Each structure stands twice: as C-alpha cells, then as structure tokens.
C-alpha cells in the first residue's frame, strides 16, 4: 500500500501536468465566461422582447443539458458539418459556453434583486446608459452574486473532469494514465481526488471572503 503510493508519487510529473492543465483551462474558461456573461446578462434584461426571449431560450437550453452531452456535440457533431477544432479548442469552448449560461443567469438574478431605488438614485445623480451600468449597477451585481459565482466556479472545475473523454490531458486523464500503467487505481485516484479537493477548497476560501464582502457592501 505504502509502496503503491510511492509508485504513484514517482509519476508526479504526469499528475502535476494534469493538475496544471486542469487549473489553467478552468481559470481561463472562468474568466472568459464571466466576461461573456456580463454581455449575455444585458441581453437577458433587454427592453426588446425578441432579444430577451432568444437569449433566455439559449441560456435555458444550456442549463438543461448535461455538460458531457455538450462536449460530445462540440467534439463529434461539429466535424459532421465540417467544423474541425482541436480537442483543446473544443474543451475550452464547451466549458465557456456552458458556464456563460450559468454565470449570465446568476447575474440576471442579482440584477432583478437590485432595489429599483439604486437605479433611480443613479438617474438623479446624472447617470444614464452605460455609465449607470458600469458605475452603479454592475459593481452591486458582482458583490451580490460573488458567492454564487464562486460556487458555480467549483462546479466548473468538477465538470472539467469530463474533458478527458475528448483526450485533453487534464488531472483526471493523467490519473487514469498512471493507474493504467501500474494497476494502482485506489492510490492514484485518492491522490487525484486530494488535488481536486485542494483546488476546490481554494475557491471555497475565496467564496467565504466574497461572502464577508457581500455582508458589508451588499446592502445599504
């Protein structure tokens, strides 16, 4: 048992590469999703009925399908219509599209709960349009939804384990490699799970910090 751990740790380079890949692809898709979600949330509250309907429909569809299905669609179905992407591009775009839907919905919800008076006070103090959104609305939405966004980020990390099925060498993929070479599944998976736990509890720590910020700055 102990020596099995030794064998697995001997392949620490593989596991480290996997961890590194998992972390950067999650971080990058998290950031991209958040940026896109800001724009999508604007569509979700558009004053134009048609725009709002289409955007909400797209978001609802994304939230209704399992991430693995989306991944398969991007990886297997797009080549059928002559769109060929590398597995990395497929994985990244699937993660981004999927999480943008969740993030956008979270931001829309936070906006819906923002007291109408905040917008009105903005108007009274000379804000309109984009400046109102940027200076008054968006900071409050971010503060209010920070903890929920953080939790969604943890879901993103866990979903990223599916990327191994399209051959992206993430932590799950590499762990699977190691156990297949040495036939030590228990020890390998235990270590991989431990690494996932470290990543997720780091995010969890950030969530708790965001909670404290929201407690002070999230309401008047």
């Amino acid at each position, binding site marked *: 048992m102990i020596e099995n751990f030794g064998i697995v740790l001997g392949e620490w380079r593989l596991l480290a590469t996997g961890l590194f890949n998992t972390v950067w692809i999650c971080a990058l898709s998290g950031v991209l999703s958040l940026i896109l979600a800001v724009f999508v949330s604007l569509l979700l509250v558009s004053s134009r009925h048609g725009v709002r309907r289409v955007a909400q429909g797209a978001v609802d569809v994304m939230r209704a399908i399992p991430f693995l299905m989306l991944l398969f669609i991007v990886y297997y179905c797009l080549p059928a219509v002559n769109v060929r992407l590398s597995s990395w591009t497929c994985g990244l775009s699937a993660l981004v599209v999927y999480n943008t839907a969740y993030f956008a919905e979270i931001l829309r919800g936070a906006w819906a709960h923002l007291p109408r008076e905040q917008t009105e006070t903005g*108007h*009274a*103090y000379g804000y309109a349009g984009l400046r109102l959104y940027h*200076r008054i609305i968006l900071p*409050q939405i971010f503060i209010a939804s920070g903890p929920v966004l953080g939790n969604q980020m943890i879901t993103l990390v866990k979903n990223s384990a599916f990327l191994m099925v399209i051959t992206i060498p993430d932590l799950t993929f590499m762990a699977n490699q190691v156990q297949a070479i040495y036939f030590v599944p228990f020890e390998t998976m235990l270590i991989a799970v431990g690494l996932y736990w470290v990543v997720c509890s780091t995010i969890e720590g950030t969530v708790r910090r965001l909670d404290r910020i929201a407690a002070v*700055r*999230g309401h008047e």
Partner: protein
Amino acid sequence: MSEARTPGDPVIEVRSLSKRFGTLQVLRGVSLAVSAGQTLCVLGPSGSGKSTLLRCINFLERPDEGSVYLRGERVGVHRAGSGRERAMTDRELARMRTRFGMVFQQFNLWPHLTVLGNLIESPIHVQRRSWGEVMAEAEALLDKIGLREKRDAYPSRLSGGQKQRVAIARALAMKPEVLLFDEPTSSLDPELVGEVLAVMRALAREGQTMIVVTHEMGFAREAADEVMFLDEGTVVETAAPDRFFGSPATARVRQFLQRYA
C-alpha cells in the same frame, strides 16, 4: 434659455404641472417658484402628490403637462439654436439632473461605496471635476455633517441618521443649484430625526435653495421661507410660515393643522 435675467428671478419655477398614473390624477396644475437662497416646505396628507411633485421637478417622473424651469432653462426639453424643441434624451436629462441634489426618504446610498466614495462618485465620474478639488470639498462636507470618522465606513455600518446626513452631503458635493428633499426624516427613528433636521436648518440658514417635502411642522415653521400645502394634487395654500401656521386662509389647512397640533 439665456434671456435677460434679474436677481429676483426664481431658481426653480414650476408652471401648471400635471401628472397621472393610469386613471389616478396625482397632480392637477401645480405651480410654484423658489428664489435663490429660499426654502420652500411642501406639506400635505399622504397621497396628496408631494413626492410626485418633487420627482417631476427633476424629471425622475416625466410630467404629462406643464413645465419646469431651472434658472430659466426648461427641464426635460431641449431647445435647438433654431428654436425647435424636442424632449431631452436620457443622457441630456442625466446631465441636467446633476444641477439638482436629491435626498430620498430611504437614503438610497450606494452600498458598494464607502461614505467618501458616495460623496465623490458623481462629481468625479459624471461632472468630471478634478479629483483634488472634489476630495477637498468632500472632506470639508464630512466635517460639516460631523462624520469625518466615518469616512471609510460602508453605508451598512451607519445608523439611519448618519446615512441621511451622508446622503445630504452626497447631494451637496454636486454643488447643486437647488436641493430637493423627499420626506428626509420619515423613515428615521424619532431620536435620530433631530440630527438630520439640524443639518438641514444649517443649510437653510446658509442660503442653500431648497424644496423640502416633509411632515415636520416644527422644521417648516422655523426654517421655511414659504410653506405650500398640497391636497389631492392641488395647491391649497401657499404662505409665509407665520401666516400659514398662525392664521391659515383655508379651512382645509386649519383642519390639517388641528390634527397635527
């Protein structure tokens, strides 16, 4: 626009303003004028249209009829050089609203910003005044309302009275030509009303032009230059406070005052 003006011209003039929400006629041809340095108190029972009147003055609500002039300039209506008139865009309205300072019943401070942040937000990002100048004035305003030590606190950490004093300072930081108060003490605990009224009294004495919608009879009596009584969207009586409280001209006002006395 830039017609010749005499010193006695009102800062704010409202001419026969009307506003309805659906089938409810809230304002019926309200007119008023406030000269520079004067304080007008608007009294009246709840539902009389006081708050709507105030919100129509800076066009937070668009009035259905009538007009508002800020130093002779029509609020909410853009007048081109050719004399052609059209409704102001949101952006034009926003710019014009920076010349009003508004204090709300529920304070409506921006919770994501510190006290100081609330004061300097609009002067820097909307009025585009220089940072150094705005900061110096904001610090002076904090001294004035006695909350220097709360400079870096967030609104959620303040009492109601402190919040409203900060809200007043936020309005003053805009260097407004007129201050609009919408029942500024109505949501405060009784023991906190005094500190807010003290700040407002000081402003009235210093010659800040103000329109104050309030239920505080004592404040109206001491601080107002003129008192207006509104009922069912109509101006019932406008008079100097001595007259208004001493010998009201109408039965409606007498009845109202009796209930409050």
